[in-house]
């Protein structure tokens, strides 16, 4: 038996292979992105073939995997919590139709949030959709839960959710790898026609809903007896108890240890449907119970506390936003315990040091586009061409950081740059605002959700410029291939590479140019032409495809054509380049007298030459 350190996401991927999933799909999104890579790694290692794909979006991914379960195969789909919004439509429907092969929907939540536009709780989405949820606390438990969840899914013929959070997905834990799982038999599964279920009309949906409700009652009873729900410190005779789930369970135990207090803690691994009998029995006899879960209230919402006082997010005991860090959990537990008269130890944190560090003018480390990033050149040219007054709808990806260059004004969700630009056009027309509207969207995001709004905009006569920032990959989440790439996620050749210009033309766009944003002068001219077209007689949406590979993904162009630069002695430290171009390699000298290049991180892209209008940044060695 060997031990390995696995990332939570890899552990989930391993379990999907171990449990015999035949189809796993997904769309990348932090913190879920490494699950599918884990499936690929272990399907090769164990010679257990699994069909994997990065689908164009989460809705597509869920439907592809769903069909596999209707054939009778085990399948799973992975996404981040906001991806679940995109996949909500098929999820809600599939809860009624049910499945044949086990079906695991993996939606990763992001308390904090660290890398997301919301702190939404996928368990609440599952509750609304009536899909049972498993809520792992550690990478090892996530691995263990996959088998439980798939077995439950098959037993009841229902889709089931696994809901890890950032700390589980991006936790690493040493665990045992017990050799190769047995070879899988060739599946005998076949899709069997069953019209009342698979093409269920509203009348049948009513019966399916009743059936679903009945199954949920049975699953609740099953969860009452599940080993995934257990009590620690059961004998601790205290008036106060804790109900906790996910990573917050372990944070709670750590805080209680620092507080020097033993409280009975009920660990919930299956928050929906709530194991009601177990919870009721735990609560009865306690004066107060604190519910600790992330990122929102799923367990707390389902509890009927009776005469026991219920502390949680609703009464303000637990903060209603943000991650539950050790310090936060310690503080609110201490406060509740003190109110109840239970003595506690002081915090191990040193308040004086914390205060001093807080008071120091430490640099704010906002994320920035990498040195050499083609997006920076594109944004810089856009700003120079259209000025600060233009309206710049943006989108989701690395290039949201164009906000640092003030070339991104809005951020909503995947694909919204196109529909918002469209909306701005019509609203501006109504209010008489003539400012240009210049939207940006990445290649992967465009294929995910940009095509449908583009068709809408062209069809209804909107006039704006759309810049498709094509860096040849899904960079933010770790370089997953898109449908425009020549290979699939496992490295094999794609059957077809979609062409972005062809798609754009097929949407009805009559102005399409593809150009390299590194050629700043010509890029700017193309932007002007695009704008002139969009505003001219018979104009409409004009699309400029900014074609430059991500420097981290493909450094070949820079390696083949390096343009090293120096800053001349004349530099007067005006800071224009530092602020307007915002390359991490351009650094203001400590005495602010000039700007220097940090050659440790400079990649010799030479793009900053155009960022000094005084001509002090020049090619050099």
């Amino acid at each position, binding site marked *: 038996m060997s*031990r*390995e*350190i696995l*990332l939570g996401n890899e552990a989930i991927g391993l379990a999907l292979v171990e449990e015999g999933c035949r189809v796993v799909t997904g769309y990348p999104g*932090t*913190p879920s*992105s490494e699950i599918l890579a884990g499936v690929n790694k272990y399907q090769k290692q164990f010679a257990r073939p699994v069909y994997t794909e990065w689908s164009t979006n989460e809705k597509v991914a869920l439907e592809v995997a769903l069909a596999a379960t209707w054939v009778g195969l085990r399948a799973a789909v992975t996404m981040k919590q906001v991806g679940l919004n995109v996949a909500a439509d098929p999820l809600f429907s599939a809860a009624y139709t049910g499945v044949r092969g086990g079906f695991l929907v993996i939606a990763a939540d992001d308390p904090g949030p*660290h*890398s997301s536009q919301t702190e939404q709780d996928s368990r609440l989405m599952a509750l609304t959709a009536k899909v049972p949820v498993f809520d792992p*606390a*550690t990478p090892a438990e996530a691995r263990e839960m996959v088998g439980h969840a798939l077995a439950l899914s098959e037993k009841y013929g229902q889709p089931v959710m696994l809901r890890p959070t950032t*700390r*589980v997905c*991006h*936790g*690493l*834990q*040493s665990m045992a790898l017990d050799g190769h799982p047995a070879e899988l038999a060739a599946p005998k599964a076949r899709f069997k026609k069953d019209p009342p279920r698979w093409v269920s009309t509203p009348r049948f949906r009513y019966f399916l809903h009743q059936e679903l409700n009945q199954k949920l009652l049975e699953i609740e009873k099953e969860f009452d007896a599940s080993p995934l729900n257990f009590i*620690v410190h059961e004998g601790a005779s205290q008036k106060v108890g804790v109900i906790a789930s996910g*990573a917050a369970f*372990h*944070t709670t*135990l*750590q*805080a209680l*240890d*620092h507080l020097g207090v033993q409280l009975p803690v009920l660990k919930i691994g299956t928050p929906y449907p709530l194991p009601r009998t177990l919870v009721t029995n735990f609560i009865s006899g306690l004066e107060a119970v604190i519910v600790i879960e992330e990122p929102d209230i799923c367990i707390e919402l389902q509890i009927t506390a009776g005469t026991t006082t219920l502390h949680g997010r609703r009464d303000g005991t637990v903060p209603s936003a943000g991650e539950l*860090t*050790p*310090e936060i959990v*310690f503080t609110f537990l201490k406060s509740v315990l003190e109110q109840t008269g239970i003595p506690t130890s002081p*915090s*191990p*944190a*040193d308040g*004086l*040091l*914390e205060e*001093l*560090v807080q008071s*120091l003018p*430490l*640099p704010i*480390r*906002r*994320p*920035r*586009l*990498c040195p050499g990033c083609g997006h920076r050149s594109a944004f810089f040219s856009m700003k120079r061409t259209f000025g600060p007054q233009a309206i710049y709808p943006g989108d989701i990806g*690395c290039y949201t*950081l164009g906000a640092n260059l003030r070339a991104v004004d809005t951020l909503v969700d995947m694909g919204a740059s196109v529909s918002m630009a469209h909306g701005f056009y019509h609203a501006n027309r109504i209010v008489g605002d003539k400012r240009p509207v210049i939207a940006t969207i990445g290649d992967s995001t465009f294929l995910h959700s940009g095509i449908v709004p583009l068709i809408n905009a062209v069809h209804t006569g909107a006039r704006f410029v759309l810049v498709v920032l094509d860096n040849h990959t899904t960079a*933010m*989440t770790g370089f997953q291939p898109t449908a425009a790439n020549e290979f699939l996620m496992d490295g094999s050749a794609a059957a077809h590479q979609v062409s972005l210009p062809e798609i754009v033309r097929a949407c009805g766009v009559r102005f399409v140019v593809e150009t390299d944003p590194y050629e700043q002068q010509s890029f700017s001219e193309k932007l002007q032409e695009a704008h002139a077209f969009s505003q001219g007689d018979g104009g409409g949406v004009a699309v400029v495809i900014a074609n430059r590979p991500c420097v981290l993904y493909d450094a070949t162009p820079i390696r083949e054509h390096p343009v090293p630069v120096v800053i001349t002695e004349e530099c007067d430290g005006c800071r224009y380049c530092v602020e307007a171009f915002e390359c*991490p390699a351009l650094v203001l000298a400590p005495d602010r007298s000039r700007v220097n290049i940090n050659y*440790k*991180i400079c990649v010799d892209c030479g793009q900053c030459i155009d960022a000094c209008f005084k001509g002090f940044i020049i090619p050099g060695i």
Partner: protein
Amino acid sequence: METKIILCGLGGQGVVFLTRLLANTAMADGHPVMVSETHGMSQRGGSVISHLRIMENPQTTGQNVPVLSAAPLIHHGTADLLFALEADEAVRSLPYLRPGGAAFVDSENGLRPELAGEISRLGFHVHCVSASQLAVELGSVSMANVILSGFAAAHPEMPLSFESLCETLKNTSTRGLERNLQALETGYKVGSLRSIPNLEM
């Protein structure tokens, strides 16, 4: 005893690589480990922090891994060690260190002078080394993380030995093994000179 370690720096400096180097080494020595990492947007130049727990070897203690050790994040004031690839990030993470804890920092000029009083009051052992400068001399700034780990291995506070770190690099490197070993050795040599009190300048 469990060893709690905070590792910090800026996105792109290799905090994740350093974390995994230490975690894999501890595991090879028979210790269960638990780590929490930063991925996603912060990796684009933002502050990056890892929390690493190295637990007792269950074969030595005869006990299972305590459930306590699975908390993803370390509480302020309880970390035994701090590894920082940048001086201001070291300062930002300093509150994690317990009284008497040790910090290994990539810095030419030590930590901010305002902190001198607190560092002495709390008995922190702060060990600075110009790891990125040494890395540039070796050919790539990206090796600063490995240099820092070698540097730390020469200090008594570090639970992982130079030899085990070497082994891990040999077992896990897919490329650049020679350079990494050289970086580890460079850091270790500088650390060995410094950790002998008589030779301290």
